[in-house]
């Protein structure tokens, strides 16, 4: 009888530890999946913007003597975005790589906004429905980019925090989980405000700027 109870205690402990380990492992996997999913969302909104550009260029270059330099700038920026490709299914672990990606996308953002500013000088172009539609889509896409980037940063923050805290940090080494890189906020517009006075419902929390 004694033998049995000792055995069952040991077995019980092993099971308990096993379960906590599995639970933590599963939690890390879930967090990692979530970060990957959010990264895929980020990629898809950037892709959506890239897809709009040929249409935009066509519409704008149709306008009488439209300033060509801004158009070239947009085309070039789009091309350089194409050169910095990151795996769309895996959240990046390399901060430098992500920064490069972000810089290329940022260049495209500013080329596009310059183009929209220049277009102010072409009232006839702006009055066309095609241009207005494109502008609405572009603005919507920029908003989506900012939202998805925030969501991604939040997911990365959750994962990275779990990787650094007990007990999940033990598994970190065993199974080779890696922390993921954050988007840096470049202009204030990209990030959530630091103070959020919200009566209990939490919107996208402001992620830390640096990991």
């Amino acid at each position: 009888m004694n033998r049995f109870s000792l055995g069952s205690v040991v077995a019980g402990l092993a099971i308990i530890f096993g379960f906590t380990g599995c639970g933590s492992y599963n939690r890390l996997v879930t967090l990692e999946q979530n970060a990957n999913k959010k990264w895929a969302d980020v990629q898809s909104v950037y892709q959506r913007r890239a897809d709009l550009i040929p249409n935009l260029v066509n519409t704008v270059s149709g306008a009488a003597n439209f300033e060509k330099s801004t158009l070239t700038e947009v085309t070039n920026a789009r091309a350089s975005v194409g050169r910095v490709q990151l795996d769309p299914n895996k959240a990046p672990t390399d901060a430098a790589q992500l920064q490069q990606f972000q810089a290329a996308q940022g260049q495209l953002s500013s080329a596009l906004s310059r183009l929209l500013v220049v277009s102010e000088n072409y009232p006839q172009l702006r009055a066309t429905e095609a241009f207005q539609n494109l502008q609405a889509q572009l603005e919507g896409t920029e908003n989506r980019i900012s939202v998805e980037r925030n969501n991604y940063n939040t997911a990365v923050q959750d994962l990275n925090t779990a990787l650094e805290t007990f007990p999940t940090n033990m598994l970190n080494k065993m199974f080779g989980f890696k922390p993921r890189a954050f988007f840096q906020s470049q202009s204030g517009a990209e990030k959530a405000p630091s103070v959020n006075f919200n009566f209990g419902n939490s919107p996208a929390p402001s992620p830390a700027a640096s990991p």
Partner: protein
Amino acid sequence: MSAVCAHAAEIIPPKPAGYFNDYAGVVSKSAAVRFNEQLAQFERETSDQVVVALFPKMESESSLDDYAQRIAQAWQVGQKDRRNGVVVLVFVQDHKMSIQVGYGLEGALPDVTAFDIRTRHIQPHFRNGDYEGGLAEGIDLVCKAIRGEYTGLGKTDREKRGNAAGGAGLLGFLIFMIVLLMFIRIGRRRGGFAYSGFGGPYVGGWSSGSGWSSGTSGGGFSGFSGGGGSFGGGGSSGSW
């Protein structure tokens, strides 16, 4: 595109009590009740949640788009699995408004349509100070665009939740009636007690340090409760 801004304090207003909420006081009470009932009925028929809120001004230094998205997300308008919410926000003194479209309705109400509704149908009325007219047209068009995407359950989210607690509610009511009857009896016995009646259902507006105060209230008011929807920045925002 996104405006440059300093990150500063901002106030995300808490979930509103109704589907139509005029915290700015620019719409007549009868119209507000009508809009509210129209939108509640729309949720019963389609499960889509459309919430309209008018505020005096923006309580944020972020860009309009960012702020509006955060509000829509915080209110969780739309059903959780369908993500079928639309939030129309108007900041009267700023002459700014935004239509935020939940993920699940981006196909039925794309940015271009939201832009069209905002700039060609709502804002022309707003420029003439006709808020009711603009909102009536805007609400109709938004509902028209998204109708057919999902089918409703005949109940609003709040009515569904109310049902779960229906038994307890009935019991509470019975106890309340018994206590009331006892009081009336005691009052009669003493001769001096007069029952003065109680007001209609209180529809909670809210007030905070910012000075916004409640707008809509009324009898038979259909309350709103967010179903857990989420927003990704779709829609259209701008000034008039």
